[in-house]
């Protein structure tokens, strides 16, 4: 497979015309691909990108979006990313350091520096035993694979999480993706201990604690990070959710307003707003807002599942199914199987057995193998279907 290093031009000051001349005569170990901001996501979706160099003199939402896309599609490997800037200001340094990125190339010598940069990355990517290649594989499993693949990729990391913060972070992500939040929290903590300046681990730790209902600890961790960088929209949204859970709606609103002023229309802010609307019983408004969401994380996904189960148990099966249909569209790939399982359960409660079986099949497919809970519901349905004609007779 072709390995690509994206050259993302956010400066628009003529690099499109000059970059080919800059790299001419130099040998790169990865294929270089010059792209504009709009082309970043489609390129990431090809699965060929392993590295990214952003040309931007100033920080801004586009830089952050590129880093977010890299985190999602490639993985959190700070050393595979770099920025080209002459004189980045402290806020710029701080915002990109949120993603662990701290390598800057000089605008004058970037092409020469890129030779070594790509050589180093290619060597790691091509070595099947390197932590980086295993991390890439694990992230690919989380984004595209099923639960079985995630578990296998996680196991391939071996004990690297005991000494490598990137491996530990990837493993914790995998544990979160397969729903083992308690274990994920411990491994995020390990990653944080191995590198106390690696902010992604601390952020995710805060998020996982929220999912587990440990709101106070989550707030403590997220507030500490907030002091060091008050411009991270994702964290502000998580903190807003945490404060709302704690009953401090005013602080939650304050944080969301700050987040919106930094990045208007950010999907994570909309997600937090939808969470709050749902929690405050404004289901219609929450549903409306959910239409604009994508890649919804574990906390809101858990809330949606919780609400669906409640509706189903109250005999409002149809409402539960409507909720699950919406939820299935917006949650992250690795969280979909749980929605499908709960939808099957809701159908079972409504005695809609054929539809329940369809949801179970979908769940199994998303899970990627035999899933004990699916088998239990399926067995229950079979039992009912078997006994129904007998009773009728």
């Amino acid at each position, binding site marked *: 497979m072709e390995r690509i290093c994206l050259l993302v031009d956010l400066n628009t000051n003529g690099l499109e015309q000059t970059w080919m001349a800059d790299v001419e005569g130099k040998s790169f170990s990865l294929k270089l691909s010059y792209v504009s901001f709009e082309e970043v996501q489609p390129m990431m979706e090809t699965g060929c990108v392993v590295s990214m160099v952003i040309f931007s003199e100033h920080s801004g939402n586009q830089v952050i979006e590129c880093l977010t896309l890299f985190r999602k599609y490639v993985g959190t490997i700070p050393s595979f990313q770099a920025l080209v*800037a*002459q*004189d*980045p*200001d*402290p*806020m710029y*340094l*701080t915002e*990109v*350091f949120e993603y*662990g*990125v*701290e*390598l*800057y190339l*000089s605008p004058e*010598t970037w092409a*020469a*520096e890129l030779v*070594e940069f790509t050589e180093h990355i290619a060597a790691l990517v091509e070595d099947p035993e390197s932590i980086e290649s295993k991390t890439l594989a694990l992230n690919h499993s989380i984004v595209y694979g099923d639960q079985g693949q995630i578990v296998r990729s996680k196991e391939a990391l071996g004990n690297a999480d*005991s*000494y*490598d*913060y990137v491996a530990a972070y990837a493993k914790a992500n995998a544990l979160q993706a397969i729903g083992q939040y308690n274990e994920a929290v411990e491994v995020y903590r390990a990653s944080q*201990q*191995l*590198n*106390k*300046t*690696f902010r992604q681990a601390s952020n995710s730790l805060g998020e996982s604690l929220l999912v587990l209902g440990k709101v106070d600890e989550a707030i403590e961790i997220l507030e*500490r990070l907030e*002091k*060091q*960088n008050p411009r991270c929209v994702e964290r502000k949204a998580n903190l807003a959710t945490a404060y709302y859970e704690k009953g401090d709606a005013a602080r939650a609103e304050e944080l969301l307003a700050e987040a919106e002023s930094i990045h208007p229309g950010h999907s994570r802010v909309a997600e937090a707003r939808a969470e709050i609307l749902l929690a405050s019983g404004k289901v219609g408004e929450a549903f409306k807002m959910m239409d604009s969401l994508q890649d919804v994380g574990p906390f809101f996904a858990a809330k949606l599942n919780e609400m669906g189960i409640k509706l189903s148990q109250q005999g409002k099966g149809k409402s539960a199914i409507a909720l699950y249909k919406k939820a299935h569209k917006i949650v992250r790939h690795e969280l979909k199987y749980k929605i499908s399982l709960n939808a099957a359960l809701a159908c079972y409660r409504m005695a809609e057995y054929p539809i329940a079986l369809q949801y179970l099949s979908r769940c199994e497919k998303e899970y990627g193998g035999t899933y004990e809970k699916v088998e239990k519901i399926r067995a229950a349905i079979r039992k009912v279907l078997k006994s129904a004609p007998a009773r009728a007779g």
Partner: protein
Amino acid sequence: MTENMVMGFAKGLTPHTVLFLVDKPEKTVSLAPLLTRLKYKLVTAVSLYECLRLIDQEMPHLIVCDAILPDGNAGVLYDRMQQQALYRDIPVLVMIASKTREQLNPLKGRKFAGFLLGKVEPKAMLAKIVEVLESHQDVSPFFIRAEDGCLVVDCTLAAEAKVVGRVGDQMVCQSEAEVDPDASLLCQPQEKGKGPAIIRLGSNVHRSGSIYNLFPLNQAKGSGRTWMSHLPEINLDRITGGQDKRGRVLFYDPKIERFEQFKRVFEGYDIDLIHAPSLQAAAAMMGREADSGVSCIYLDELPSTAAGIAIKDAIQKIPEKFRPPVIVATTALNSRSTREIRYIRKPFGLGILVEALDTAIKSRMNFAEGAGTKLEIHYQTPAKLLGLDETGGILQTKWPLVVGNKLILQHPELVKMWEGSAEVKITSIVRMEPTSNIWQIKFETITAQGSKSKYWEKISRHLSEKAIESAG
């Protein structure tokens, strides 16, 4: 280490010895400071007899001689040198006073490296000397390439050290070598069962006659990071129940807005920044703040202007005991960290600055006496031997090393030639290109510290035997 790393030899790497054979020693007086500035060693002989003795003793890289000598001429010198294989390749530059038959006849039929005619200005002579040495690739004329001497194998440079513990998130090692902050080193414990790790961004602290190297644990990579997590805290203040004081950094940045942004960011890391609006102000504040709890000084660039010199003077004036570490952010690609000043290359990432400030702050803490463990380790860096000369040789590495360090060169053939001794001393280091991570290092072997010619004869003999063996 790949073959394509080799790209000729760095200029100025080999300190050259130039032997002047002149009838009057005064002739070299005006040239001497110019040669010294280029780190050349100047040796003077006033007779052919003395010259031959000095060739044997000094093994010069170039001989500059008068055409006519009190006890002979340049032709005689040339012929005598040709009689000895060892000295055949030393270039000889002849100074001809005038184009007379007496001056020119002895030179006929001999291959001199060049001629200087009439009265030559010192600068012109220096240019000619440099030209001749560079035409020999700027290495010693005795230099033997590793491939010609069948010496091409992977080798390692190593230094012995002891891990004594940690101060916060900094691993503290005691060693006899200073480390360069730009270097990545393999930390290899002697104890079996403890894995290795790559460590970087090291810094040096001199305390009670010992060198301590501090490495940020956050930057350590590899299985060795596991045992590093369990190192004992050796900060005595913390051990006795006290809290770490907030770090205070005297911070020079000419742009107040940038400073204000940095100040906000570092408050989150429990570091207080005190603003110095100019270098002059920084120099003045250094004296006042030195004994009042400033843990570190940060300067955005340190130019070679009066203000830069004032800063260096101010640093020197602070008693060593109170002198805080100085970090200079610079765009200059050739700046190298010294004991007093640590350079970080701009543009740098936030993590680099956070670690640099944290290391500087931790280096001021009371840890030396509280050493908790003595885990023996080696710092290692892979190297490629490029060749040998009469004092040692030239290596190529991917990381800079510190001049003056005594290290162990682990090379199977050299250890045999050096009869078990592997200690070398780094005498100079040059980065191949401003943006590359390829460094060439000139080293001297301890074995060659006696007679250079005897040492070199032994090495030459060994290499000849080895060549015969491999041909067979």
